[in-house]
């Protein structure tokens, strides 16, 4: 359970946000602050694992200071609703955030994507299952009717070797949007800033 953390300064976050924001016209990253080290150092691939499908991919997310289109598509594929076989373009801020998080904790195992984009059908099904498991009661852990997963703006993930509260505290410091802390994973979305779930 040991991991080394990379220290990222606030100033360097701002610098990269400006770079990506200016060049990636389709998706300014101004609201997400990316670390200097993320782009200035030799690029490392973002490594993703989907525990449902067993797929693992190493993603080249950036090319210089710009997004790499094929890398984004690999991410979209890993975030797909595999139950309904639907792939959509997800919010790139999530990918940039996952990249920053991976670099922060510097672990060798890939980030596990528990859930990314959800179709209406899948979200209804998961909500129904969760309520049924809790004897018909809606709990804080039940998928919301209006979940950000429906808009491809949310990801549930975990990093093998790093405890969920540790990851969640870091996600909170990024100020991206919603943070949900569950027993085995962290929910991160790019909606309004809010927090729920277990205390961290």
């Amino acid at each position, binding site marked *: 359970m040991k991991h080394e953390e990379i220290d990222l300064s606030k100033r360097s976050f701002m610098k990269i946000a400006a770079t990506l924001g200016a060049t990636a016209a389709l998706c300014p990253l101004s609201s997400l602050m990316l670390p200097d080290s993320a782009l200035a150092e030799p690029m490392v691939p973002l490594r993703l694992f989907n525990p449902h499908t067993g797929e693992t*991919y190493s993603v080249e997310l950036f090319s210089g200071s710009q997004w790499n289109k*094929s890398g984004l598509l690999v991410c979209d594929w890993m975030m797909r609703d595999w139950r309904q076989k639907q792939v959509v373009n997800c919010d790139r801020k999530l990918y940039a955030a996952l990249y920053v998080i991976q670099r922060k904790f510097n672990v060798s195992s890939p980030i596990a994507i528990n859930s990314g984009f959800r179709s209406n059908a899948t979200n209804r099904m998961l909500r129904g299952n969760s309520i049924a498991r809790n004897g018909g009661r809606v709990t804080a852990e039940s998928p919301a009717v209006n979940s950000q997963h429906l808009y491809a703006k949310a990801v549930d993930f975990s990093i093998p070797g790093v405890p969920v509260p540790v990851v969640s505290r870091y996600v909170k410091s990024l100020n991206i949007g919603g943070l949900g802390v569950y027993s085995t994973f962290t929910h991160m979305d790019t909606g309004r800033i809010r927090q729920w779930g277990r205390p961290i």
Partner: protein
Amino acid sequence: MTFSRRSFLALLTAAAVTGMTASVSFADGVNVGDVIDKFTKIRSMSGEFVQFDYKGNQSEGTFAILRPGMARFDYRNKGGLNILADGKTVAVENRRLKTWDLYPLSRTPLNLLLGDRIDLTTGIIKYVVEKDGLIAVMLADQKTFGNSTIEIFFDKNTSELRQWTLLDEARRETTVVVHNLKVNTPLPKHVFRIPYKDIRERN
């Protein structure tokens, strides 16, 4: 020197019809068949490219290749092109005009670059030359591609792909130089999906 080497090799490859091309070797023991074999055994490839077209324009971007027959080229400049090959079809998007053109992959020489193998015995290799540490392999097939050809350049020492030059029917030349190559990093086929629905709606 280059010319005499070229003509010497051209002579050698004139024997291609008899299946001799595979055994073209250079003085230092580098065998062309081995170089091509190494190249086609790479299942996936991605990196960056710089393209020089016949008008003298230079553009750049990122690309990814998955054998057999899949590729995408994303040009960085706004309003430029995007090129996609999904194993059967090549789709060229003109972002400025917001149009798509579709071609059967099997009719474009790109098919040779993306194929599982390059058959050395069919006479498709027109010549092999060596220059500045690069090995250039010229591929043509009048029956399939008409006058279009592709010349593929490999690093002589590492067999790594370095560039290719396409000549179209009108003999217009486009050269693509690749760098920052990552090889055999798996890619899902989704990366190479041609958006047929969007194309139908747009065209």
